[in-house]
């Protein structure tokens, strides 16, 4: 059974718009952080690989925001470049500064695994436009997971220094990861009607997958996660300067119609 746009109720439309914005915000901010590595990676091959991952993330953001536009959302560039930190709904996980290579790779692994599992479930969405996007994006995401899982393994099982840095990254990032599984307002109804994946089920699969890789295979230790998470509307001090830089050129030219 598939649902066409006209069959969404107003409440469903609003909730789906919000969900698509949340998904896009994570992609935009993480792609930005990854873009900071281009030209500065530890090996030339990684300048290439991480830039590729970042382009896919921007591509996914574009898919989500274009779909949002068909549901009454604004132009994707308007959404990306003209909202401030109070309106961005990305997780804290993705806005933290890029750190060292271990930090970037552990973050990417936590994020890519969650995205791949969510997308895989979303390919079965009863809302055809979302199922189509998910089918396209999930193929790319599987490569990201392969790449980052191997990096985390190589760093965790490399030298004492790389192991120490990888564990330190995981200790810092882990408390933020659960935010990826926070539902948006109205998500329960979308899940009940099969439009969105069951986030709790995705979360459970993710916990299992990352524990097997990080603990069993890589020998890392998972710290305790805090019992409660702040909402996606509250940010660390790192988001505002990121957006200031990202939006500077666009905002210097408020009349520009073409970029």
């Amino acid at each position: 059974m598939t649902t066409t746009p006209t069959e969404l109720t107003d409440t469903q439309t609003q909730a789906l718009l919000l969900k698509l914005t949340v998904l896009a915000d994570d992609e935009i901010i993480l792609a930005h952080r990854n873009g900071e590595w281009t030209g500065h990676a530890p090996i030339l091959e990684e300048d290439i690989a991480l830039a590729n991952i970042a382009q896919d993330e921007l591509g996914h953001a574009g898919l989500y925001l274009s779909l949002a536009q068909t549901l009454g959302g604004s132009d994707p560039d308007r959404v990306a470049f003209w909202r401030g930190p109070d309106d961005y709904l990305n997780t804290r996980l993705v806005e933290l500064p890029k750190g060292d290579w271990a930090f970037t790779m552990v973050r990417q692994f936590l994020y890519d695994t969650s995205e791949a599992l969510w997308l895989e479930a979303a390919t079965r969405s009863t809302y055809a436009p979302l199922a189509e996007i998910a089918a396209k994006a999930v193929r790319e995401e599987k490569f990201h997971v392969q790449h980052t899982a191997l990096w985390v393994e190589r760093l965790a099982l490399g030298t004492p220094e790389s192991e120490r840095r990888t564990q330190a990254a995981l200790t810092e990032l882990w408390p933020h990861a659960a935010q990826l599984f926070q539902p948006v307002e109205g998500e329960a109804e979308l899940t009940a009607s099969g439009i969105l994946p069951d986030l709790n089920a995705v979360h459970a699969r993710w916990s299992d997958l990352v524990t097997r890789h990080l603990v069993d295979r890589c020998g890392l230790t998972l710290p305790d996660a805090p019992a409660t998470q702040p909402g996606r509307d509250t940010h660390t001090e790192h988001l505002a300067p990121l957006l200031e830089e990202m939006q500077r050129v666009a905002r210097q030219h408020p009349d520009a119609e073409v970029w």
Partner: protein
Amino acid sequence: MTHPTPAQTGITPGETAEQHAHFEARIARGEKIEAGDWMPAEYRRQLIRMISQHAHSEVVGMLPEGEWITRAPSLRRKTILMAKVQDEAGHGQYLYHAAETLGATREDMLQALLSGKAKYSSIFNYPTHSWADVGMIGWLVDGAAIKNQTMLAGCSYGPYSRAMVRICSEETFHHKQGKEMIVAYAQGTPQQRAMAQDALNRWWWPAMMMLGPHDADSPNSGVLTRWGIKLKSNDEVRQEFINEHVPELLEAGLTIPDPDLHQDEHGNWRHGPIHWDEFWAVIRGEQGLNKERLGARQAAHDDGAWVRDALQAYTDRQRAVAAD
């Protein structure tokens, strides 16, 4: 009395006239020289110098534009710019591999870059002041590079020639996106138009100079031409560049910062005098961002040392496990 050097004659002690005659006959027949073939030591030396310099230019060339990835004004432009800088990393990679076929190692080439011993194109020591510089670099700098690289795609050394064919096809996209961008800004808001013109004012002469000194002042050209590495002179390549770009820039409504620019009776666009003092000062690192560019490469290299050590340790361990 001074004896001519191998750089002038191409002949290194120990090499015979027969070997050279055979080698030059192959080049005259248009054959490609491949990695395992006999070649004069000077041919090998010149190619390693040129190819590694070219590879370094790609790698350092990631920096001036890369700075703008975080500031690109639309999602599309950000994706395109990332793809472009990624391509440059890829070009660096092919070219390092091409130089490796001649016996150079990536580690040695990288050390030569970081120590300042090896050169890279001085065009990348110019600062990027505005977003329009990204477009102007694509249009003019990549446009000039394509002219040079199209020539090199026909060069006598097989691995270099094939790397160039592949690089040129990607550079064509870089050139296209840069031109598309500047043409749009030239027709955009007054502010965008001013930004495009300012970028042209700053990049026109550096792009002209990046094709190298006038033929009379080009120290390496003689032997490179004889051995089919360099098929056209700097001035010939520069003329091709000008003839293509002048009409397009004018059509976009921009003003080229050369009051002496004019078309001669053969239809060639003739430029005014080039200020080579600036070119040589930038080459010598006295002007421009030489220190900053090499500093950024050095920092990436140093910060990445523990990562490369970890990769090596992991690989060694995997090999040891596999051998058991």
